[in-house]
C-alpha cells in the first residue's frame, strides 16, 4: 500500500445510533493535523447520494476515502460506486471500523486515533500496532476446574509445562460432572469426564488446588503474581483415605450443592463419589463443632491419626505464572425470578439442572424419575418410594430471549430439553411428554438429526411458550397458546421442567476487576474479536475458555479450552509474550508509522 496523497475522511455516525459513545469532534481535530488529509465530512454535512458524492470527489480531487465510524461497512458500496464514477480506483475506499481493530466496547480515544493515524498513512492497524514483548514464566494458572479448565490444564500439562488449576469448590468437574448424558450423542457425561478428572489429579505437571479462590492478580503479561486463598478443608488431603466413616457418624446435614439441593449431604462430605480429589471436606457453615464447640464425632471415628483438624484456618499462597486461563463457567438462571412458572412454590416444578440430577444414577433417586413428595416432617424431598410422573412438560427459554431477564439465547436449552424427552421415554416408557418452545435451535453437528430423531419418538413438541403454571387438584396446570394452531392450550401434568438459561457467574464481576479484562453487556467476559480471536482478552497473557465467555455447549467449551491452552503454549515455546494491546501509547504508534512510511519511501526509490 503506498502512502496516499489526497485523502478525505467521512465520519459515519448516523443519528439513530443512540449508543454511539465516540467523541467525533476530537477525532476530527486530530485528523486535521495530517497534511495529506484534504477534506473531512460528517454525516450531517450533506445529503450523501451517489451524484453528490461523485461531484465532491471530482471537485476536491480526492484519491483516497476513509469511511470511519461504528458500522462504516454499511455505506461502503455507495462510496466505492461514487469513486468509480469519478474515475478513481474504488479499492481506495478504506474502512475504519471502530468495532473491529480491537477497540472493543471501551472506545479509548487514543486507540481510535491510532486506528485513524494508521489508515491515513495508508497502513493497516495490525501491521503497526504490535505490542512489546516480555519474557514469559512457563507456569500457567487455570482458574476454574470445569470441563474447559480441565481440558486447558491437560493440554498444557501434556506439553510438559507446569499448571496451577484453581477450583472454588471441593472437586473439579464443574457443571458437566452433574449431567447425566450429553447431547446429541447421549454419551454418559461421567464416563467421559471422570477419566479426564483423574488424569488431572495424576499428572505431575498439574498442581491441583481445590477449595481455593484467586484473591489478587498483579504484574503483567509473562509474569503475573497471583495471591490465592486456600480455604480450610479441615481434612488433610494427603492422608485422608476416603473411607467414609466420618460421614456416617456426622450428625449435621445441609443441602447438597452438587445435587442442586435435591438431596442432603453431611457437614463432612465428599461432593460426589467420583470427586477429584477423592477426599472428604468439612463445610464450616453446617458443622456443629464449628458453630457450638461441641461434637467432634468425625475426629473420634477417623482411622487416620491427625487427618481431621477442625481448627485449621484459611491461608494464602502466592504463585508466579506467565499466562492465565480464565474458565470460570456460568451460573444457572434463577427460575424464582419468573414467578409465573411457580418454581420454588410448586414442588414438582424443577429446573433442568435439578432434573439432570434426578436422571443421574448417582442422583437422589438413583436415576429413576420420581415426583417430589413430603416426608414425615413435611419437607419436600425426592425418594424412590414416591410416585412416578405420567405426564411431563418441558418449558423452553426460561430466562433466555427475554428482555426482562436475559436478552440472549443460551444456546444449549433446546438441545438438552430434547435430550430430556428422550431420556424420560427411556426410563418411563409410555410417559406423555410435552415440549413447549418458541423457536427450535438445533444448530451444530448432528443436532438437527437429533431433533428429527426425537420428533419420531412419541413426544408432543408444540410451538408456543407456556405463560403460567398453577397448581390444581395436586397437579400442575399449564396455560399457553399453540401458535401454529392458533388456540389456547391448557394441559395438566405431573411434573414441569424449566429449561433455564445460562448467566455469567457471580465471580465474573470481581475477576474482571482483578484481572483487568472487560465484560460485555450481557455480563460475560469479552473476547478481543468475536470472530477471529475468541479466546484472547485485551490483556496480554490472559485467555478465556468455556462458558465464562458466553453460553456454549460442551464440545465448544472443550474446543475453546484447547484453543486457550494453545495460546499459552505458543508463548511458552517462544519464550516471549506480547504485552497488552491497549498498552500501546499513541506516540509509539505515530513513531512506528513514521518509520514504516520512510521504509516505504526508500523501497519506492530503489
Amino acid at each position, binding site marked *: 500500500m503506498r502512502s496516499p496523497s489526497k485523502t478525505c475522511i467521512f465520519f459515519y455516525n448516523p443519528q439513530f445510533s443512540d449508543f454511539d459513545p465516540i467523541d467525533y469532534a476530537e477525532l476530527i481535530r486530530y485528523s486535521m493535523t495530517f497534511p495529506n488529509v484534504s477534506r473531512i465530512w460528517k454525516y450531517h454535512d450533506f445529503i450523501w447520494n451517489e451524484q453528490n458524492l461523485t461531484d465532491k470527489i471530482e471537485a476536491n480531487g480526492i484519491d483516497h476515502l476513509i469511511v470511519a465510524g461504528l458500522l462504516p461497512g454499511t455505506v461502503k458500496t455507495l462510496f466505492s460506486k461514487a469513486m468509480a464514477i469519478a474515475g478513481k480506483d474504488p479499492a481506495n475506499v478504506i474502512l475504519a471500523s471502530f468495532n473491529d481493530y480491537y477497540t472493543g466496547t471501551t472506545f479509548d480515544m487514543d486507540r481510535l486515533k491510532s486506528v485513524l493515524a494508521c489508515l491515513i498513512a495508508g497502513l493497516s492497524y495490525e501491521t503497526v500496532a504490535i505490542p512489546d514483548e516480555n519474557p514469559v514464566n512457563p507456569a500457567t494458572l487455570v482458574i476454574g476446574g470445569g470441563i474447559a479448565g480441565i481440558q486447558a490444564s491437560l493440554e498444557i500439562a501434556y506439553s510438559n509445562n507446569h499448571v496451577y488449576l484453581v477450583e472454588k469448590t471441593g472437586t473439579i468437574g464443574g457443571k458437566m460432572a452433574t449431567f447425566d448424558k450429553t447431547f446429541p450423542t447421549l454419551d454418559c457425561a461421567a464416563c467421559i469426564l471422570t477419566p479426564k478428572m483423574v488424569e488431572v489429579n495424576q499428572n505431575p505437571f498439574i498442581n491441583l488446588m481445590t477449595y481455593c479462590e484467586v484473591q489478587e492478580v498483579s504484574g503483567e503479561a509473562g509474569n503475573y503474581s497471583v495471591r490465592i486463598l486456600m480455604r480450610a478443608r479441615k481434612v488433610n488431603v494427603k492422608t485422608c483415605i476416603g473411607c467414609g466413616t466420618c460421614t456416617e457418624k456426622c450428625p449435621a446435614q445441609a443441602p447438597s450443592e452438587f445435587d442442586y439441593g435435591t438431596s442432603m449431604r453431611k457437614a463432612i462430605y465428599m461432593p460426589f463419589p467420583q470427586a477429584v480429589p477423592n477426599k472428604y471436606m468439612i463445610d464450616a457453615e453446617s458443622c456443629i463443632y464449628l458453630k457450638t464447640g461441641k461434637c467432634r464425632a468425625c475426629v473420634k471415628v477417623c482411622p487416620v491419626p491427625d487427618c481431621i483438624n477442625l481448627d485449621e484456618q484459611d491461608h494464602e499462597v502466592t504463585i508466579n505464572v506467565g499466562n492465565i486461563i480464565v474458565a470460570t463457567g456460568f451460573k444457572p438462571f434463577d427460575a424464582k425470578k419468573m414467578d409465573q412458572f411457580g418454581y420454588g412454590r410448586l414442588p414438582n416444578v424443577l429446573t433442568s439442572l435439578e432434573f439432570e440430577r434426578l436422571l443421574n444414577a448417582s442422583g437422589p433417586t438413583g436415576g429413576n424419575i420420581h415426583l417430589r413428595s413430603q416426608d414425615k416432617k413435611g419437607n419436600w424431598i425426592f425418594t424412590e418410594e414416591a410416585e412416578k410422573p405420567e405426564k411431563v412438560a418441558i418449558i423452553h427459554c426460561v430466562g433466555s430471549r*427475554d*428482555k426482562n431477564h436475559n436478552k440472549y439465547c443460551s444456546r444449549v436449552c433446546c438441545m438438552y430439553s430434547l435430550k430430556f424427552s428422550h431420556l424420560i421415554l427411556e426410563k418411563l416408557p409410555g410417559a406423555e411428554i410435552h415440549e413447549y418452545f*418458541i423457536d427450535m435451535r438445533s444448530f451444530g453437528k448432528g443436532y438437527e438429526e437429533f431433533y428429527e430423531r426425537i420428533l419420531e419418538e412419541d413426544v408432543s413438541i408444540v410451538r408456543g*411458550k407456556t405463560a403460567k403454571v398453577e397448581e390444581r387438584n395436586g397437579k400442575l396446570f399449564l396455560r399457553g397458546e399453540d401458535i401454529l394452531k392458533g*388456540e*389456547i392450550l391448557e394441559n395438566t401434568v405431573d411434573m414441569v421442567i424449566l429449561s433455564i438459561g445460562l448467566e455469567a457467574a457471580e465471580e465474573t464481576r470481581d475477576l474482571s476487576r482483578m484481572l483487568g479484562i472487560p465484560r460485555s453487556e450481557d455480563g460475560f467476559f469479552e473476547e478481543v474479536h468475536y470472530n477471529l480471536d475468541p479466546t484472547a482478552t485485551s490483556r496480554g497473557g490472559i485467555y478465556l475458555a468455556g462458558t465464562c465467555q458466553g453460553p456454549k455447549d460442551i464440545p465448544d467449551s472443550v474446543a475453546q479450552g484447547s484453543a486457550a491452552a494453545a495460546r499459552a503454549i505458543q508463548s511458552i515455546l517462544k519464550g516471549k509474550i506480547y504485552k497488552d494491546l491497549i498498552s500501546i501509547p499513541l506516540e509509539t504508534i505515530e513513531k512506528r508509522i513514521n518509520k514504516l512510511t520512510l521504509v516505504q519511501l526508500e523501497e519506492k526509490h530503489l
Partner: protein
Amino acid sequence: MSVRVHPELRNQLMQFGIGDWNACYHCGTCTAMCPLSEEGFLFPRKKIRLMQMGLKNEIESSVEPWLCYYCGDCTSTCPRDANPGELMMSLRRYLTSIYDWTGLSKKFYTSEVWEIGSILLIAVLVVIAFLIGLPAMGYSFTTELTSQGGVKINSFAPIHIIEAFDWAMAIVVGGLLISNILRMYYKIIWKHGHTKVTFWVHVREFWRLVFNFSVQPKFGKCDDKRYWFSHWFLMSGYTIMFIVVVVFLPWFQTEKILPPWHLQRALGYYATFGLLFGLLVAITGRMRRKDVKFYFSHVSDWLFLVMLTLTVITGILIHIFRIYGMPYATYIFYIIHMAVLVPMILIEVPFSKWSHLAYRPFAVYFQHLKTHAVPRKTKINSIN
C-alpha cells in the same frame, strides 16, 4: 376471496400510540396470560400478527380490541418488550377512527393541534353564545335572589333554550354515534360473506348489550376488582347525570332550593361522588404510573380526564354558589361549565376516547352474534 396486504398499515398505526409492532416473536405468552382471551376470540398476539402482515380488512372486522380491558398482564410478562397492552389500546384508537365516517376522529387522534384546536373553538363559541347570543335574543339576567336566598339561575340560562340546545346536541352526537355503530356492525358482521346471523339471534343476544353496558362484567374479570368498581362508579354517575341533564333538565335546574334528601339533589350528589372517585383513581394512577395500564398516556387520555374533572368541579361550584346566593360567581362558572362540557361531549363522544361507552358493549354483543353465526348458503350449495 383474495387477501389484500397493506404494507403501509404499520406506519399508519404507529400514529395512534406507542409500541413496537415488529418486536413480537410470537411466543403466545400474552394470549395465555390474558384473563379475557377466549376460544375463537384470541388476542393480543393474533392481532399483532395481522398487523405485521398488513391485513387491514381483517383488523377492521375484528371485535377483539374492544374485548380487552387493559389489565397490563400481557405487557408485564412480554419477553420482547413489545407492549401488547398498549398495542391493543392503539388498535382501539385506530378502530374508532375507522368506524367514524367523517374522518374527524383520525384527525383528532393523530394531530394534537386539531384536537385541542377544535375543543378551544367550540368553547369560544359557547362563551360567545352566553355573552352575546342570549342578550341579543332579549334575555337579560338578574342578580336578585329568590325568597330562599338562592340565585335566579333560570334568568341567566333560560331553561327552555338550554333544554332545546341539550336535545339538539344529544341528537347530533347520538346520530353520529349510531351511524358509527352501524358501520362497525357492517364491518364486523355484515361484510362477512361466508356467514350470516339470523334475526332471532339478534333479538336473543340483545340482553348482552344492556348487561355489558350497565355492569361491565369483562372489566371485572380483569384481575384488579378495584379498578372495575371505580370505573363502574364513574360510569353510573355519568350516565345518571347525562339522563338528568338532557331529559329532565327542567326538573333538575330549578331555582327553588330543595332539601338535600330530595331525589334531585341526591342523584346529583351520587353522580358527583361517582365521577370524582373514578377520576381520582384514574388521574392518580396515570400520574404515579405504577400499574402497567396507566403507564402510557396518549394526549386523548389526558384531555378526557382533565375535561371531565373540570366539568365536575365547575358543576359543584355552580351548585354551591347558587345555594349561597352568589349570582355573578354562579353565572361565570355556568359559562365555564358549559364551555368545557359542550366540546367534551361533541368531540369525545362520537370521535374520541369516550366513544368506547358504545363500542365496548356493542363489541360484546357482536362477539356473541359472531359465535352464533351460521354458514351462508352459497350458490353452489343451492344448486346441489
